[in-house]
């Protein structure tokens, strides 16, 4: 199991370095939202945060051959987003949204951990069947009741309870690999 995963990661890394479009898409889909969350906590503006993250992906793509390992890619992205966000604030002559001036700032660290925690959870949720994803989303994120979900999805309230249980079981079973 372990070896199979490693090979998959290695294969991915090769296609990333070779500049394959699909490799870019995969990386962007996984990291766009958490990086934007991270940036937004620094610059306090969603639109600006999105622009910064997009720029960082372009930069990364130009420098992809310098990356030694897939882990370096992830660190590069967070580092670049942080630096670009701070640069933006510098240009605006503003204090960061989190009132911080050093890289060792607790606010920055918290924003980064929050972004990554959300990504970890999202990665697991996205592996559930679409039906379970819908239930997770409606129940846990939109705080809808069983009855409302049943009406929305046109299923019995009892089966919402069952699906929720299945979703929870599935979330607890799935191990994320690093």
């Amino acid at each position: 199991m372990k070896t199979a995963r490693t090979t998959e990661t290695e294969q991915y890394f090769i296609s990333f370095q070779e500049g394959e479009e699909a490799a870019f898409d995969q990386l962007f889909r996984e990291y766009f939202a958490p990086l934007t969350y991270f940036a937004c906590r620094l610059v306090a503006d969603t639109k600006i945060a999105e622009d910064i993250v997009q720029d960082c992906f372009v930069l990364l793509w130009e420098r992809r051959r310098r990356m030694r390992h897939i882990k370096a890619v992830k660190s590069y992205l967070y580092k670049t987003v942080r630096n670009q966000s701070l640069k933006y604030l510098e240009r605006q002559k503003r204090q960061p949204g989190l009132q911080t001036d050093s890289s060792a700032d607790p606010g920055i660290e918290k924003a980064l951990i929050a972004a990554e925690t959300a990504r970890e959870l999202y990665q697991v949720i996205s592996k559930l069947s679409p039906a379970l994803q819908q239930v997770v989303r409606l129940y846990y994120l939109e705080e809808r009741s069983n009855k409302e979900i049943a009406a929305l999805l046109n299923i019995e309230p009892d089966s919402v309870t069952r699906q929720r249980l299945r979703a929870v079981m599935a979330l607890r079973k799935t191990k994320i690999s690093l």
Partner: protein
Amino acid sequence: MNILSSYQKELEQDFRAAYLIGGFIRENLTEEEEEELEQWIQQSERHLQIFEDLTDEASVREYMHWYYQRDTEKKLGEVKNRIHFKSAGRLFHFWKYAAVAGIALLLLLGIYYELVDQAPRGMVENHPPPRDIAPGYETATLTLADGQQIDLRKLKDTLINAQVRIENGTILYNNAGGEPEYHELSIPRKGFYQLVLPDGSRVWVNSESSIRYPSRFTGPERRVTVTGETYFEVAKDPRHPFIVSVNGVDIAAVGTAFNINAYPDEEGLRATLAEGKIKITGDQRQEYLEPGQQLLVQQNQWMLRTVDIAPVTAWTKQQFKFKGSTIEEVMRSVERWYDARVVFREKVNDHFTGTIDRNVPVSQLLKLLEATGRVHFRVEGNTITVSH
């Protein structure tokens, strides 16, 4: 250089903390990991604060909600306009490229917005709009060895013979003795059916498809014949291989799950493995499939490729799931499921990606496709006209 690597280390610690907090929220940590998290929290007041803030239910909701609100596909499209990619190379990756080529839409999980806007369902069913087509439903005809035909929608409970009875529209085999006889289950357009075979294997049979099987499996192998689209979850029995014959090809399994698409109007026979292992033989060739692989048989050509399983098996979960599909592919599914006739007035070159429940009137599916602005439909009776 030292500063850089120390920040690198700090980052990796933060990534690790996020992994542990994520696991904590899912109640999925091993004992060692719990201990590791404990240690991290105790390292500083700040860590404790971060842990408390991030595991608070309201804040989990807040950041997950924020996460879901991103329009990642749109932003991906924008950023890709600024990047030059090398052209697609290997045949193996055909599928991936096709999927990203012209994604016009991401319907993913979009259907419930539609449902909210709509009038209560009961009303819709009582007064169907004139320009709409109702979806398919569970229905099948069972043909016995003597030619007798049983409509499973009409006949709910009945004892057919010692080996088989119908209970609430479900066919049940009891493996009683006696000579096995051949049964054929056929599903019309606008129908589907889920069958449990005499050995306990489960089969999903899609619209315009059929399966022929014995009322009891005897002999060294378990053999069935199919047409159209079927999905198998084969009951484990290593001593009696399960063999599906389709279009002159044999697919052998021991205990496994796979999808077969053998519609004559599709690009070719497609066998896709979800779990386990299967061996495909025919035309003096053989091929073993690993999960996630698909064998495409086009006349004499065999092509092995890696695919995303979810769109292939979505129909067994009562869904349409398109991933970089052409409008022709989408409409072939529509024809079979809604028993509609599709006329193309103009060529549409975009690719479509998205998921929707199959259990909705055709207008809902078409409305979502139209929301891309790339395609337009007109429904009259059961004819659907496609244009720009």
